[in-house]
């Protein structure tokens, strides 16, 4: 691997030399020299290390901004809806409606980029605009989303938080003149920081960024993502405390038979996530097709509808974490849980489709918890022997809907474990999430974020598709015939005889295990007729040593190794002297051209 670029030194080397003097002026000079020396040390960090250090700074910034954002939402909510969980009648309708008009005005005239999915905006920054996230969007997301969520719109703070993190990271990266490559990667770093602080779950945030934004376990950026996520969570906890978004009651899994109960939850969760997906898929283009002037009133209309529902069911307003907490503690009967899940699904659609800025993570968590609780309650009714509490089902339900709706199964599993702090949950969560994920995939081919991007006219890389792309390895392309291996002690006449018998075969000379040379066929044939008894292939013209491959290496990697070599040996990992085949450029291209049908055959 090539050396990473070194950040340019801006301090003259002469100025770094320490000066030992006694006078006050000289003392000042000494201080200055030390300062410059320190600056020199800092700014001559390799960019990789500098990037890691920057990730911590991004994390701290993001953590602070997310804390302020959450406080802003709470303040807005208390101011607009009152302190009670059940707001009084005129407020519950007026607050989201009037706030909806303000939100629309701000989103249309002041912060034109605040609408839409933050995840897709980060992906757009990464894949389209070289990591550029306008800082105005950060400010816009902060104020507009705080107003929207605080007024009772059924949206969450996580998606805006992750974009704010990405925006901060982007600003810092540009200001510090990072390389293009790092600038492109810095947005996901900020995303992880923002999401981790919003969720108070660093592992889930890291996994989400890998699973949904980057799509690969890139070692180059993983360290920075982890550092940013951890530092942002530490910062956030310093102000808001270590408690997770809701308290999870303790639970245990009594026996393997109980996993069937969670499988049923997986089916229900898959169906619910599909319903929410289809609802958005169906209605969003229709909403976008409405005349432009209606955009001024769409958030207000959504607010009005939510407010009207909120008169009777205020639980569905806002992010709803306090309600999730109550559901976790078995505070609702199954009929109410089911009703709340259905209503939340409806009002989330209203809020999101109206173009009100905000995230879908919190509503997903809400619906999942309610649905899980309802399924758990119903199962308890029919099977009173079940040991799992309603809270356990609600918790697993969160992961289930997350996997089905957002299509991030690994994040979903770890999120539940991270939120509950209990590894006992892993088996039920895996079963339930995988079923929901499978159902969602079977009936909705394009995942939510890709779909939203396409509806917005962007063709962002689909992480899910990329994850499932067939990756070719050397074994898929290599040939086991068409090669002759000569030994250094072999008589050249024998080699020539074999070469004449196989005119198309490549001639490889095995000097020692792991050292292969490419013999010049013509020269072998030229030397053979007059060769003495001691003439061996070593005396013929050859090129080498040539690099060799292993059958499990990726074809892309093999292409890099191949360079100008016409053929590369494929050796055994157990015995470097053993040739398993050869790879040529033509073979490689042929493998890439293979159709899935051919591949199956």
């Amino acid at each position, binding site marked *: 691997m090539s050396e990473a670029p070194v950040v340019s030194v801006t301090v003259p080397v002469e100025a770094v030399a320490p000066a030992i003097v006694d006078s006050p002026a000289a003392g000042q000079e000494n201080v200055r020299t030390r300062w410059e020396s320190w600056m020199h040390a800092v700014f001559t960090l390799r960019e990789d290390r500098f990037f890691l250090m920057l990730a911590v700074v991004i994390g701290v910034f993001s953590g602070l901004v997310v804390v302020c954002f959450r406080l802003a939402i709470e303040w807005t909510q208390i101011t607009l809806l009152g302190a009670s969980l059940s707001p009084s009648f005129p407020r519950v309708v007026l607050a989201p409606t009037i706030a909806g008009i303000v939100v629309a005005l701000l989103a249309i005239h002041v912060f034109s980029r605040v609408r839409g999915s933050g995840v897709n905006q980060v992906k757009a920054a990464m894949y389209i605009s070289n990591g550029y996230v306008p800082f105005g969007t950060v400010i816009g997301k902060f104020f507009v989303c705080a107003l929207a969520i605080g007024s009772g719109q059924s949206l969450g703070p996580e998606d805006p938080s992750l974009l704010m993190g990405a925006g901060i990271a982007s600003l810092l990266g*540009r200001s510090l003149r990072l390389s293009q490559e790092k600038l492109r990667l810095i947005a996901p770093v900020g995303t992880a920081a923002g999401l981790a602080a919003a969720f108070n779950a660093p592992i889930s945030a890291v996994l989400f960024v890998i699973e949904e934004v980057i799509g690969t376990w890139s070692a180059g950026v993983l360290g920075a993502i982890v550092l940013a996520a951890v530092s942002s969570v530490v910062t956030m906890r310093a102000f808001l405390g270590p408690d997770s978004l809701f308290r999870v009651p303790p639970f245990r899994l009594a026996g393997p038979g109980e996993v069937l109960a969670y499988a049923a939850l997986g089916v229900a969760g898959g169906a619910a996530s599909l319903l929410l997906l289809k609802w958005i898929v169906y209605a969003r283009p229709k909403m976008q097709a409405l005349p432009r002037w209606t955009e001024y009133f769409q958030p207000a209309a959504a607010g009005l509808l939510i407010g009207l529902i909120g008169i009777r069911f205020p639980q569905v307003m806002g992010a709803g974490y306090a309600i999730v907490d109550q559901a976790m503690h078995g505070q609702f009967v199954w009929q109410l849980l089911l009703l709340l899940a259905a209503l939340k699904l409806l009002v989330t659609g209203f809020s999101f489709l109206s173009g009100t800025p905000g995230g879908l993570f919190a509503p997903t968590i809400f619906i999942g918890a309610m649905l899980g609780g309802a399924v758990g309650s119903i199962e308890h009714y029919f099977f009173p022997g079940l040991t799992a509490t309603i809270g356990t089902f609600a918790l697993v339900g969160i992961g289930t809907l997350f996997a089905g709706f957002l299509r991030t199964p690994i994040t979903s599993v770890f999120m539940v474990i991270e939120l509950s702090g209990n590894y006992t949950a892993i088996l039920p969560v895996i079963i339930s999430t995988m079923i929901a994920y499978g159902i969602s995939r079977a009936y909705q081919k394009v995942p939510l974020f890709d779909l939203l991007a396409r509806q917005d006219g962007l063709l962002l890389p689909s992480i899910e598709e990329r994850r499932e792309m067939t990756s070719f390895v050397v074994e898929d392309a290599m040939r086991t015939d068409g090669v002759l291996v000569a030994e250094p002690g072999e008589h050249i006449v024998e080699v020539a005889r074999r070469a004449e018998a196989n005119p198309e075969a490549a001639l490889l000379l095995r000097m020692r295990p792991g050292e292969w040379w490419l013999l010049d066929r013509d020269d072998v044939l030229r030397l053979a007729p007059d060769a003495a008894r001691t003439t061996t292939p070593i005396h013929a013209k050859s090129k080498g040593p040539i690099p060799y491959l292993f059958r499990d290496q990726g074809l892309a990697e093999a292409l890099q190794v191949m360079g100008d070599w016409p053929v590369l040996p494929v050796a055994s990992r157990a015995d470097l002297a053993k040739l398993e085949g050869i790879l040529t450029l033509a073979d490689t291209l042929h493998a890439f051209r293979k159709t899935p049908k051919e591949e199956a055959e």
Partner: protein
Amino acid sequence: MSAASPSTVSDESPRIFSRELVLILCVLALVVLLALTALFSRMYHKKIHTLADAMFAQGEADEQAGQVKAALTDYRNALAYNPSNPLFQLHLAKALAAAERGEEARSYLLNLLSESPGSGEVNLELARIAAHNSSLADAMRYYQGAIYGEWHSDPIAMRWQVRRELCDFLLSRGAVKQAAPEVIALQENTPAGDPARLKIVAQLLLRTQQWNRALEVHRTLLAADPNDEESLAGGAQCAFELGQYVTAMEYFDRLPRERREQPDLAYRYDMTRRIFAADPFLSGLSAEARAQRVAGALALAQTRAENCAHQTGQSLEQSPPQTDLQRVYQQGRDLQQDWAPRYLERFPDRLDAAMAYVFSVENASAAACGEAQGDDRALWLLGRSRSVVNQ
């Protein structure tokens, strides 16, 4: 959503300063943001704690006013602003339990228990829910957890109360055997100078039929207040059950007539009187009176045996005797003449044998025909107490 193109990036990029300056600005911005966040956070926390406390106080007021539903809403609101506050959780759980929503309360309590497994208060609430659900094993476990758990104020008194509640629960479930050791433990943890608690202990001892211990406690209580009706009644009951009819009668006599005639005492008082009227071993009786009483007892036993034989369709004269009643009856038949009143008066040593015969007949009759009533019952009880004394 729109995304900027690379060219736009350069156009909109902030002015490029030196890295040093940017880093210094970063640090400054961080300090400012940190200070602002700290300020906002402090203001916010102050506000929500004020709100939470106000709602909690409102909840307590509602609860005291008997408005459980309103209290639940207030506690929930308080918890929404301070979710990890164990006091709020506990009050919400208590309010839920009071509203007969035990399962919902249980969930919060289990959460609290996982955080502080030694909390006496949480264990007690869980025990109450388990008791309400008739889950004996869980109730026992949580009550024990509460007894040996942590209590912030007056732990000794709290543990005493919990144990008392456990005893009540066990007795209400009819688990007398399980309750007995708990009541003994309660007695041992009750100070002798606390009559209010001693009375409770005495009642529990009575309910667990630990007559000796109960009598002892009642004596202690009566030493402090000789006219305490409950102690006199309890003492009389214990003495009666222990066969100490003299003591029982002494306590009965000190009770007002109305109290003696109450259902819990009326039967025992009546029996004690009958025993007193029939007992030939009472001190102070003349030889003639003793002989008369024994003769009366013999006649009574004779009648009881005949009635029982008639009732069960057997002949007392059957030879050889087949049943206990026949055997016992025939053993004394030949001695009837020796137990004539004039001989009994003249030979007081025959009293014991005669009464032993009476008691045997009463026992055999009771075994064959069920518990006796009235004077026969009195004789049977007397016989039982004599045998206990003899043993």
